[in-house]
């Protein structure tokens, strides 16, 4: 007999929603969170725009998390251990988790595991920035933590590398707090963030956006003194003679997120190279029975509303009784990725929710789903862009041995 029916690793939006769904179905549930408060990254997301789909209102990230935290705290079926870090998981007929905290080393057993431990930011060293190692070079999330949680301004003259939404939001935030943001540099020829964020975070504050330009080197001993920026061609190669030195004390890098799966890998759970998260079925169960993956460790989402939704799917499934699965692979073409990648034929609902990103920008696109070559579902899209994740409900009831294929077609946009 395990200590808990479900142990959720991570107390961010995915973990909170998964725990609530599991406990609502009667599962004794534990959330293990390494930080001192629940909420995960939403604690520092003070900007608004969260919850439009789920709650029909524009909330700040903190408010979105608070709604789930209130329910978790009031739920008699959920226990929370804060400032507790999982260091090892062993599998037998149940899962044995070793965790460390101020109480010492603890062992906790679980019938089901739900990974909800999010993603990590790619760092400056992972994008080939050369030079010294001065203070003042940090990721956008670290800068956001300084400003929004600790109330500390990390620098006065900032350069931002990467035009993803977090970088744009930090450009505005630092400007509002009195720092000078000298410019946002993007190696690609198009911005990665939403156009509305280009407008409300950059244009509103006269912050220049430099496309096809990147940071090549940093200078400074002790503290950052300058960065060297340089134009790049469409193969991301530096163009000689375009180098420019920009004096600054802070470089903020916002160059992508990577799902964190060190614990999942320690259990030999196979990962999809496209998502960098585990392969899952429609219940978000990985290829290891009883282990689920939800939120940004499964794949990096753009909207927290969908994180909550998939986490609830996993939570409900983890509360149920274990049954053998009949897994069917889904074939795919034209996608950056498609989740889930497998179907458990023994637990299919009338409709299955899929999330996908197109491999390239497309206009007048069509999603076709076939079973043994016959189209069973079709949907048209005016525009599809890789940075925008789509959600679609597909009625699917294939039989064992049949071939299910998702096919995305449409005019490619250069």
């Amino acid at each position: 007999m395990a200590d808990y029916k479900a142990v959720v690793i991570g107390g961010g939006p995915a973990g909170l929603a998964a725990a609530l769904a599991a406990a609502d179905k009667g599962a004794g549930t534990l959330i293990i969170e390494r930080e001192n408060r629940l909420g995960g990254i939403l604690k520092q997301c003070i900007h608004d725009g969260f919850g439009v789909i789920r709650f029909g209102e524009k909330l700040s990230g903190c408010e979105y998390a608070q709604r789930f935290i209130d329910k978790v705290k009031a739920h008699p079926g959920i226990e929370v251990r804060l400032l507790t870090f999982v260091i090892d998981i062993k599998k037998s007929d149940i899962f044995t988790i070793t965790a460390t905290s101020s109480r010492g080393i603890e062992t906790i057993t679980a019938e089901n595991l739900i990974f909800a431990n999010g993603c990590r930011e790619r760092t400056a060293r992972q994008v080939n920035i050369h030079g010294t190692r001065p203070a003042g070079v940090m990721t956008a999330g670290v800068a956001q933590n300084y400003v929004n949680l600790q109330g500390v301004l990390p620098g006065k003259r900032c350069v931002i590398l990467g035009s993803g939404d977090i970088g744009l939001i930090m450009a505005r935030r630092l400007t509002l707090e009195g720092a000078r943001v000298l410019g946002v540099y993007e190696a690609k020829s198009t911005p990665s963030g939403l156009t509305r964020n280009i407008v409300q975070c950059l244009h509103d504050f006269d912050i220049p956006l430099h496309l096809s330009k990147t940071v090549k080197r940093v200078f400074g001993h002790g503290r950052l003194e300058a960065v060297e920026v340089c134009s790049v061609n469409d193969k991301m190669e530096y163009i000689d003679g375009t180098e420019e030195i920009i004096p600054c004390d802070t470089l903020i890098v916002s160059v992508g997120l990577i799902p964190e799966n060190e614990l999942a890998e320690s259990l030999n759970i196979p990962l999809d190279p496209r998502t960098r998260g585990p392969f899952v079925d429609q219940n978000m169960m990985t290829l290891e029975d009883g282990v689920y993956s939800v939120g940004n460790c499964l794949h990096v989402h753009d909207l927290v509303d969908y994180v909550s939704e998939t986490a609830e799917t996993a939570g409900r499934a983890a509360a149920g009784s274990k049954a053998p699965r009949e897994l069917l692979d889904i074939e795919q073409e034209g996608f950056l990725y498609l989740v889930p990648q497998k179907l458990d034929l023994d637990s299919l609902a009338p409709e299955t929710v899929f999330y996908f990103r197109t491999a390239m920008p497309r206009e007048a696109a069509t999603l076709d789903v076939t079973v043994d070559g016959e189209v069973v579902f079709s949907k048209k899209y005016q525009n599809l862009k890789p940075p925008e994740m789509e959600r679609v409900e597909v009625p699917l009831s294939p039989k064992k041995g049949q071939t299910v294929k998702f096919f995305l077609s449409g005019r490619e946009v250069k």
Partner: protein
Amino acid sequence: MRLVCIVCPNSCLLEVEKTDAGVKVTGNKCKRGITFAIEEVTAPKRSLTTTVRTVFENFPVAPVRTNGEIPKEKIPAVMAYLKTVVADKRYKAGDVICGNVLDTGVDIIITIDMDQEG
């Protein structure tokens, strides 16, 4: 003139034309785009999210937001005013910390429960 609608993530590209009859808007996928475009060319508004200082060592700043939109040109003044505001009690998410900030008719609300650990 061309504007990008910032109401939702669709980021519609709006074509806005000022005529004698008023403002003509095209390119919007929903009616919120029309309201946005008219406001944007007459009196642009924005919501503001930031933090205020607190007296609590383990919770140095608390997140706040306007519970409506304020005129865009008032953002620097509201930011300067909020630098003088200190949260001296454990507010709950949704509590008003400054009513009718700088006579904008909009309140500043706390967006987190401050009674949590840490």
